[in-house]
């Protein structure tokens, strides 16, 4: 089964190797996230002009939209890692899937709260049962379910596999929820940034948005690496490499 995995990936998926790799990369990722985040904030809050319709309130998109993207992107990563974990039983994949869930939940929560803070002045309501909002809420519940199931097991690896299974079921569920709620005509606007055809956003507003998207991606990787490192220490606490780290004088 492991012959399908390239050798370097196989090596990287060994916990001590990944621990060192992630430890070396994490500060750089964090620095990149902070740098791009700062640029995006300056661009979004100071440089970008006010919107013709929404005035300054639209500036919430610079965090709302990247967070919403991340909430879905992280679910995708989690689902992929969950699949790998279930099929090939690779420990690192289990850990990546399980440690992605809290970050995804954090971004989903941010999306919901900032969306609410945007919806009140613009639509006139904090919340509406529209397809996007509802599927985002369901996404939050899925994340919480995965986290809850993971922690309900005494055996961590068994919990990870059960929660990974739930994550896979959830992947199918999110679009279904979206379309089922779509019935009740939707209030949320369409997609602004399109892969095909021109974006309907002015360039001065677009670049901070894209930069922030990049920043959240870097942040996700930095946070994920930190979480995975911690979880590996916990899971492998009986192994020699962890003992060396624990007793070593430097907290590396």
């Amino acid at each position, binding site marked *: 089964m492991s012959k399908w995995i390239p050798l370097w990936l196989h090596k990287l998926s060994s916990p001590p190797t990944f621990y060192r790799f992630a430890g070396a990369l994490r500060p750089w990722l964090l620095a990149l996230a902070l740098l791009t985040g700062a640029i995006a904030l300056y661009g979004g809050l100071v440089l970008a002009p006010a919107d013709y319709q929404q005035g300054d309130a639209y500036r919430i998109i610079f965090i709302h939209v990247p967070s919403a993207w991340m909430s879905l992107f992280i679910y995708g990563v989690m689902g992929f890692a969950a699949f790998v974990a279930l099929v090939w039983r690779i420990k690192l994949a289990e850990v990546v899937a399980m440690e992605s869930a809290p970050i995804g939940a954090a971004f989903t929560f941010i999306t919901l709260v900032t969306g609410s803070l945007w919806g009140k002045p613009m*639509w006139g309501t904090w919340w509406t049962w529209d397809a996007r909002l509802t599927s985002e809420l369901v996404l939050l519940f899925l994340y919480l379910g995965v986290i809850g199931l993971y922690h309900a097991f005494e055996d961590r690896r068994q919990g990870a596999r059960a929660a990974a299974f739930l994550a896979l079921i959830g992947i199918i569920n999110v679009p279904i929820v979206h379309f089922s709620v779509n019935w009740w005509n939707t209030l949320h606007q369409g997609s602004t940034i399109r892969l095909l055809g021109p974006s309907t956003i002015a360039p001065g507003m677009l670049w901070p948005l894209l930069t922030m998207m990049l920043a959240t991606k870097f942040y996700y990787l930095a946070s994920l690496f930190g979480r995975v490192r911690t979880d590996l220490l916990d899971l492998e606490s009986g192994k020699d490499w962890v003992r060396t780290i624990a007793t070593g004088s430097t907290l590396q």
Partner: protein
Amino acid sequence: MNPTRKRRLIVVLLVVAAATVAVGLGVFALQQNMNYLFTPSQVQSGAASSHKTFRLGGMVKAGSIQRSKTSLLATFTVVDADGAMPVEYTGILPDLFRDNQSVIATGHMDNAHFVATEVLAKHDETYMPKELKDAMAKAHKDKPMPEGSDAGGSP
């Protein structure tokens, strides 16, 4: 055929059969008319007459907004391509509520006008500075901004 393969084949056949039935039912369901939003012209043609409460969707007619000086009562007209419906609403209207804005109002008919219990403003997915918008508006004289389709993948 060995039992494992046979079992797998049965499972695959069952899944395919179920998917076929499900697709059939889905196609049938799509052919049914599911309309939860009525435009003023539909209301006037009597399409919504069987409902007590329904949703009215359309654009706010320019210059039709009248606010009461003593209360929160507001009256305005919602129009679509070839219909208009007077609406009355008591409450605080959202900031985006203005002339030529797409709105969705929930409520019921009272004689010839619509009494709304909730008014929501729908904004489009276009973001641009005011100057640019003015410039564009000048370019395509009195052409409304394109209302985007809702088929996008990202929120």
